[in-house]
């Protein structure tokens, strides 16, 4: 009997060693990640419970949850939250819609398909700041912008787009950049479809419309959900576009930009800003948890 427990011990030890042998190469990356993300996060948690102003330098005071309580009263914060919600939701949904339409077109065979696909992906490859600057100075600008040149040559009055519709100006740049991403995800879904299922539907007498809405779209669902998830996680943190295009202001200051304004962007209220950012983190975690469930469903669904 003791021999058996010995054997069990041995097996366990071997398994442990095997486990470490696999994990070991990941340790440096893990340590690095902890140092650059988790340590600052814990510090932020601590800062968010203090009142801490740097310019002019003042001593740090522990004030408990006052920063969080103040948040609820802060009209600017509430506006920033709404701007964030609007910006994220509209950009994600619009880019998903456009991306799906383009993916359906790209799913067909035509001459120059590869070339067109590459062109359509290009916006996604451009750096956010560059995209923001290009749109601001060459599309929206009232003197040099393409849009205004168009309006002018059609005989309409010039419009200062960014001033008049700050939120929608940013959203259109976001949609322009994120449509290719959504398109690629949906295209993968379309091309992963079982061709014989579509053939079966045709033989069963389905019209093209019925085929799309009753067969293709339900099968695309996990891909659409994935697009929404990844898009939301990225777009809720948008900062560069806001900074470059409008530089804040009513209707375009989202939460990340608000945090920036309150801290290194001129407010220097690090305690308060930390509390804001903690709220953003919690919101992101909620979305991500929700989304990861979707993702695992997707992977599960692929098993036969």
């Amino acid at each position, binding site marked *: 009997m003791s021999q058996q427990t010995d054997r069990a011990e041995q097996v366990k030890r071997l398994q442990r060693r095997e486990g470490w042998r696999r994990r070991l190469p990941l340790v440096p990356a893990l340590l690095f990640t902890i140092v650059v993300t988790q340590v600052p996060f814990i510090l932020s948690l601590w800062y968010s419970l203090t009142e801490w102003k740097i310019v002019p330098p003042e001593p740090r005071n522990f004030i408990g949850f006052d920063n969080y309580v103040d948040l609820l009263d802060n009209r600017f914060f509430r506006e920033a939250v709404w701007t964030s919600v609007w910006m994220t939701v509209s950009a994600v949904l619009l880019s998903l819609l456009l991306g799906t339409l383009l993916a359906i077109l790209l799913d067909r065979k035509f001459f120059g398909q590869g070339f067109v696909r590459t062109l359509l992906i290009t916006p996604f490859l451009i750096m956010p700041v560059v995209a923001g600057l290009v749109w601001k100075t060459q599309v929206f600008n009232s003197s040099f912008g393409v849009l205004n040149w168009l309006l002018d040559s059609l005989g309409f009055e010039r419009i200062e787009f960014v001033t008049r519709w700050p939120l929608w100006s940013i959203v259109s740049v976001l949609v322009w950049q994120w449509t290719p991403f959504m398109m690629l995800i949906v295209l993968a879904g379309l091309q992963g479809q079982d061709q014989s299922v579509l*053939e*079966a*539907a*045709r033989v069963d007498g389905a*019209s093209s419309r019925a085929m799309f809405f009753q067969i293709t779209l339900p*099968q695309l669902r996990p891909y659409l959900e994935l697009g929404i998830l990844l898009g939301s996680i990225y777009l809720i943190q948008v900062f560069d576009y806001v900074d470059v295009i409008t530089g804040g202001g009513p209707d375009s200051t989202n939460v990340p930009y608000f945090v920036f304004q309150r801290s290194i962007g001129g407010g220097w209220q690090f305690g308060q800003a930390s509390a804001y950012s903690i709220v953003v983190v919690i919101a992101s975690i909620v979305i991500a948890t929700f989304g990861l469930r979707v993702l695992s469903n997707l992977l599960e669904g692929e098993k036969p």
Partner: protein
Amino acid sequence: MAEVRYENASRIYPGTDIPAVESLNLDIPDGELLVLVGPSGSGKSTALRMLAGLEFVDEGSVYINSEDVTLTPPQDRDIAMVFQNYALYPNMTVQANMGFALKQQGVAKPERAERVQEAARILDLEPYLDRKPKNLSGGQRQRVAMGRAIVRRPQVFLMDEPLSNLDAKLRVQTRTELADLQARLGVTTVYVTHDQVEAMTMGHRVAVLKDGILQQVDRPRTLYSRPVNLFVAGFIGSPAMNLVEAEAGGPDGVRLGTLALPLDEQVAHELAAREPGTYTLGVRPEHLQLASEGIAGEVTVVEELGSESYVHVAVEHQGGSLLLVVRAEGETMTQRGDNVQVSCRGPVHVFASNGERIGA
């Protein structure tokens, strides 16, 4: 209820010169189960898909009920198809899968449910109506695919290797059930398979294809006893016919070494009129036997199947070694290494150098 006709129907895939199916002519009467059989790449699936409308017909025409459907889209042909991987709609329940075609036709919900119920009863699917395909076993999925076809009461059933994803035992069982179901419903059926045993057991008639060309279409028995060419002879029958090259022609008859081989009268007659030369002889394993005298050889393998056994015998032929498969009793005493004599009792098929059968 319908008859199907292929008239010189060809399919040439874009980018190739060689037709996948070349001038196919086939007449399928009402209620028949016709099996298209051939090795992979023989064009049997393409021929089926041409009838389904999933493949263009580049030349010739296809008729269902003497109506030209060559250019009719699949949804207007009133056919039902069972796919090799079943192609069930993954997002729908069994019930919705089976009712999908009726829904497209605008059949009212109560009637739809009734017809689905009826089909489910025939196929023993009633307990699974609310499940999704991914929660079914392979055999159940296969039955759902069948159900989806019979619910529609179509003119023609098209089946593209419907049993090849099942395990061996279930395949044999389903084979009989399917043939029985087809006979009961009496719906004209075109059935594609690469398995010649399936073809022989199920088909009222069997059409053998090779490289897109129809070789022979006939009742299974005729296909077996009178193959029109070397390809059909070698393809039909398991284990395959022994094919041996030998000198023949003229009045001397046919010999394999010292062994004189029996011929049908007609074959002998026609062969006598031909030039002597090299011909291919075909002998079924059951027409060979281990005997006290005949051509001598050594046993290399014994395959015991219980009811019978197949003895592989290496004999000397034209200076080389030749392997003959001989059918023997189930309880044979023969072992590897034994020296045996093989004699022939059945009629031998003779094929000319171009592969054509000699003697109709």
